[in-house]
């Protein structure tokens, strides 16, 4: 009887309980709470105090979507994704294929590609800040070609600079995922393509790209999620989403509205809109990578 309810080895449930409780406390509950807050007139209460929040329907969503700063941040993240996502997919696929095709120094190459991924963003932002500053090394090398105003304080270049930085920082992880996928592509397919007279580019296009399709979907979805989570870079690299909000992100807005200005309700509404957006883009990615 007990076996019918709990399964053959109910002890397994006991072993998994800490993890299940953890997921409930730091994932499920906050997720539901975030959605709840977004429909109420909610304020931070002092510890132990319970204030009855009023149901306000979609008022928080209306407040979020009519705020030009919030709209600007969503526009910025669209620019970010338009640069970061395609660049990430193309570069990581090409570099992984190149790594997979050579036999020497592969460990050294891999370490070089992975190292930005394992390093703290705060450290690397410190370095990029100096490299891309007005008097920085990048501008010195570019000489007369250096943009004015400089990268991070230029309203047209601030967001693309951040997109470039994040691509560089995260690329190693996606190279790793593609390397795993390439190991599963049967060598015979490359051989038969070669016998058919396909060159290196044709083999890449007709064997590699379709062979790693499922990984491309994962790379698309993960880079969209990571992009939508953008916070540290606009907070630190462009000094709070500057110049004049040109590099602000929705999560930076959540922080400013929710924590700094004490409007957790509007902040939660921004979060819910963001998650719906990520969901829609993920669906679109699934469609795009489906075999035709």
């Amino acid at each position, binding site marked *: 009887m007990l076996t019918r309810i709990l*399964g*053959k*080895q*109910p*002890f*397994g449930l006991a072993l*998994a309980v*800490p*993890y*299940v409780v953890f*997921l409930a*406390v*730091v994932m499920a*509950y906050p*997720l539901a*709470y975030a959605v709840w*807050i977004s429909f109420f007139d909610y304020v931070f*209460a002092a*510890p132990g105090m319970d204030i009855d929040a009023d149901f306000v329907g979609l008022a928080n969503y209306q407040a979020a979507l009519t705020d030009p700063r919030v709209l600007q941040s969503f526009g910025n993240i669209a620019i970010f994704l338009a640069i970061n996502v395609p660049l990430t997919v193309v570069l990581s696929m090409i570099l992984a294929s*190149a790594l997979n*095709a*050579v036999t*020497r*120094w592969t460990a*050294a190459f891999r*370490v*070089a590609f*992975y190292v930005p991924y*394992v*390093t*703290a963003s*705060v*450290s690397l932002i*410190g*370095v*990029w800040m*100096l*490299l891309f500053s007005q008097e*920085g*090394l990048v501008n*010195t*090398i570019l000489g007369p070609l250096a943009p004015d105003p400089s990268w991070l304080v230029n309203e047209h270049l601030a967001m693309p600079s951040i997109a470039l930085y994040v691509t560089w920082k995260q690329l*190693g992880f996606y190279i*790793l*995922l593609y*390397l*795993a*996928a390439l*190991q599963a592509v049967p060598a015979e397919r490359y051989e038969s393509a070669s016998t058919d007279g396909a060159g290196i580019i044709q083999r890449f296009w007709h064997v590699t790209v379709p062979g790693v399709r499922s990984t491309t979907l*994962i790379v698309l979805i993960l880079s969209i*999620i990571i992009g939508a989570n953008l916070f*540290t870079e606009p907070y630190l690299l462009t*000094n709070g989403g500057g110049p004049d909000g040109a590099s602000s992100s929705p999560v930076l807005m*959540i*922080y400013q509205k*929710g*924590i700094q200005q004490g409007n957790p309700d509007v*902040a*939660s509404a921004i*979060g819910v809109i963001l998650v719906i957006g990520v969901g829609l883009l993920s669906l679109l990615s699934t469609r795009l990578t489906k075999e035709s």
Partner: protein
Amino acid sequence: MSRSPKQVVLYLILAIMALGFIAPFYFMVVGAFQENPTNTPADMFPTGGWTLENFATINERINLPRSLMNSLVFTAGVLLGTLTFGLLAGYSLARLRWRGRNALFVIMLGVQMVPFQLLMIPLYVQVASYYQLGDTYAGMILPFLINTTAVFIFRQFFLGLPEEIFEAARIDGAGELRVLWSVAIPMVKPAIATVVLITFIGPWNEFLWPFLITKDADTQPLAVSLANFISNSARSEANPNGVILAGACALALPVVILFCLFQRHFRPSDLGAAVKG
């Protein structure tokens, strides 16, 4: 394979890109020890002007040992939680048949899709105001206590073990915990190395959550105190660039060294399978 022209082109592409990936690290390490870090390409290989002053200055501003200590406690707490509870959950998901096992696995796949930042406001209310854990290690650790990717990796490794060894141990009368401890865990040691590596970089590098939950400089991990230094007071230093780079080094080097030592455990096959679930 012969060294065809095509191979040479591949090596060239890889070498140029690899240089681009590590050049900022070179700039960071060299600049951290320079009296005046260069901004001209001609001086990229300095022969003089070496100093330790930048590290002394950053240490005066943000109490380096204390911040490193806080980062270490935060990271160690997450490692401990992930290794204990993650191993149990991974083993249970892979080798034991109980009701709800498949549901939990589906939930884990969903968890990876939820952006942590959405949970920032409710988690902040929960941890800071309900649990009163602001400015504590427990408050910092709680949302990261069990790394879901690690659970996937453990599950993957346990799945790869042959069922016979478990049956043999059970026939010998070993209880489930004994089977896990003396039979299963010794066989997944490589997984433990991989998990330590990928779990370590999470909390050590994390900025947003400890930034929200710690206001007291004495409890802030290095990522937070360094970020505060960069955005608030770095400009007033005599050699701001050198001091920023010294701080960046202090935060980056422990992970970079750990990674170089353990890089053979950062394998595509293990992590690829774990991310795909």
